[in-house]
């Protein structure tokens, strides 16, 4: 995984196109590149528990290998996070750790990779729904973006403690 070019298909390709198309008088694009949407999408999909199957209808939106390769670490981190956290996919932590750290990139990772892709597509759908669908003018896109970020913040900021995260990081390294 993350060693070849990637392509969105069908409706997701359309959605990605819209997410990466300039809007308004200032030609603002929500995602500067398709890779940026690809990086964001699995996180969103997972956070919103949104998975989506591959749409095999016409249309595709490609990400070249070069861009994939440049963002390989980022993508693997997200992959591992999802693998570690998706208890529905694998209820046992040790198994999830294996998926995250032992089986990745191997034949054993096929379902895991599919899961990741599902979250990618689900994330694209969420982003499209929240940022694009209800937008009619430039202000709407920004407003939606603000609402989306605010929504995330409202949902998790109280639960997230940055200091404890850094502590956890130190503990993990020792």
């Amino acid at each position, binding site marked *: 995984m993350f060693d070849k070019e990637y392509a969105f298909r069908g409706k997701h390709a359309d959605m990605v196109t819209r997410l990466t198309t300039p809007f308004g008088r200032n030609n603002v694009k929500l995602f500067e590149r398709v890779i940026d949407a690809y990086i964001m999408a699995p996180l969103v999909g997972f956070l919103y528990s949104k998975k989506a199957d591959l749409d095999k209808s016409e249309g595709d939106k490609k990400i070249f290998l070069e861009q994939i390769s440049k963002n390989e670490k980022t993508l693997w*981190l997200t992959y591992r996070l999802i693998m570690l956290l998706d208890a529905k996919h694998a209820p046992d932590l040790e198994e999830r750790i294996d998926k995250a750290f032992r089986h990745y990139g191997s034949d054993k990772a096929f379902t895991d990779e599919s899961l990741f892709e599902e979250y990618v597509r689900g994330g694209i759908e969420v982003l499209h729904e929240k940022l694009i669908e209800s937008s009619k003018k430039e202000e709407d896109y920004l407003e939606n973006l603000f609402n989306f970020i605010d929504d995330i913040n409202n949902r998790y900021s109280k639960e997230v403690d940055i200091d404890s995260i850094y502590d956890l990081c130190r503990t993990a390294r020792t």
Partner: protein
Amino acid sequence: MLLKSLELKDFRQFKGVQKVEFSTDLEKNVTIFMGGNGSGKTTIAQAFTWCLYGNTDFNDKEVFCKATGAGLGANERDYVKVTVRLLHNDREYTIRREQAYKKDVNGIVKPASQTTLSISFKSEDGQTVFEKQTDIEGRIKEILPIELSHYFFFDGERIDKMSKDITKGKSPDFAEAVRNLLGLSAFIAAMDHLNGKGQRKSVIKSYNEEYDGSSDAELIRINNDIKMMESEILSIDERIDEIDIERENAREEINRLKEQIRANAEGEELEKEREQLLHSISNRNDRIKDIKSLLIQRFNREAPGFLSRKLIQDALLGLSESDNLDKGIPDIHAKTIEYLINRGHCICGTHIKDSNDAYKHLQDTLKYIPPQSVGSAINNFTNECENRMNNSDLFFDSFISQFKEIRTEENNNIEDEERIHQIDNILKGLKHVGKLQESLMRFEKLDRELEDQSKKLLMKKGEINSKLNRESSLRKEMALKDDNNRRIETYKAYALYMYNTLYEMYAKKENETREKLQRAVNTIFKTIYNGGLSLSIDEQYDIQITVMDYNGYSDKVETSTAQSISVILSFIAGIIKLAKESTANDNGDEFLTSEPYPLVMDAPLSAFDKTRIKTVCEVLPNIAEQIILFIKDTDGDIATSYMENKIGQKYVLDKHNELESYIVLEEV
């Protein structure tokens, strides 16, 4: 005029000084000169002519005595002189003419000067007064005009010519001279003064010259000009009034526009504000664009971290609960170790072979490195998590702050746009200052143009006014001239009236006088020439001889010499008679003045038969106041016998030779 004496000095054949006294006795009024052919009878008669008029009828015009001239030496001078004394208008005149002669070296005697004439008279106090040279001619004319002299100094030898003269073709001067003699001179002078012909200035002529005939037409022209100028001034005034109103309107408009422009200065401020607002909005939009761009960049770059926070936190918590965190060698995978063992030497160079320490050590390491151990993988994972977390805590605040910034700027823009909208609404009510300024300039230009027009019109008016003043004073002058013309007309009318009155009187008198003359001449004529003939005198004092037919038929007839002499004598005698009567019978007619005249007659009595000689001799002395008669020796006795009682002086002309004669007084 009566002749008193004649003194000759070397006049033709009368050598030296010779003097004769004429009889001035009222009774014995005849002076006789007797002489043979060539004795000088005609010369003496001509001496009067020469003295009075400077001319003679002789072919030889040189009057200096040839005998005296013969006695002159070379370059010697002498002179000829004739002195006539006469009475005229109760004044005794001495008339003297003389001329110098000189003999040249060739012995030829020639005049050495022009003749000189002098007239002197005795004044009442006995002083001798000389006439001015300029008055002499007039005086001679007054005493006896040359035109009549031939009739008074009567040359019988020229009867034929005189006869022709007297019957036709006499000069107008003759008629005038006759009129003068007949006492009409006062009339003539008065009429001449009033309305004389010729170059001389008469009263009426001078009035005509003073009369300005052009003034009437000029006055009409000036009047027309003045009328035109007055109407021009009137229309200029009207136009100036119009301009004043137009200017007033223009100035009102100017003030109104200035007021509007002042009010609209606020508009200008608003315009500026609007511009500034637009500028701010534009700046803000740029800024918003920049912020948006930064916001998106931040979202793209940092949002994954932000989104990952919860996941990382949960993941790390989960891992911390497991026993999978160890001390593996970071980034060393089992494949790395297997590679080193297969290669046979370590990175540090240590030889690796079955069962040596290095081999055993590496085999042991495999327990702590992936895939057998996930410790190091988790370690890496942790580091990456940490990296991803970097700045993620700032993302939200930054994102929000940037978003708010955008919103603030957008709100500012909205406020500004509202203000612009407000300004637009205010400006809608205000006209554009530039437009107002344009209108103002237009009206100010109009005002200036009107002012110019007004000035020009005023100047034109001034010009017309001064011209009008000039024309007006000219008109005054013309009016005065006109008055003058009227006055002159009046004077001229008076003068003409006077002239006409005088002329009527004159014509009447002249007619009467002429008729009188005709009667007198006829009476005399019939006395000295009996026959069925009568004379008539026309207006030119030409005498016509007509045959008196018994049947009343009359016709002009040819005249014989005797007839001619008779006619002449009758005419002259008639004139003399009339003149004498007029003086003698001072009949109270103040318009007629006259003077007695002598009859100096070189008379060819031989032309008459004895009967007629007797008649002539008896009649003439009774008619003329003075008779001076030159007769031939052969006629002398007859004349003496017929005029015996009338002869006061008698002279005999003694002819010494062809060049010398002497006057000898004989006892009467």
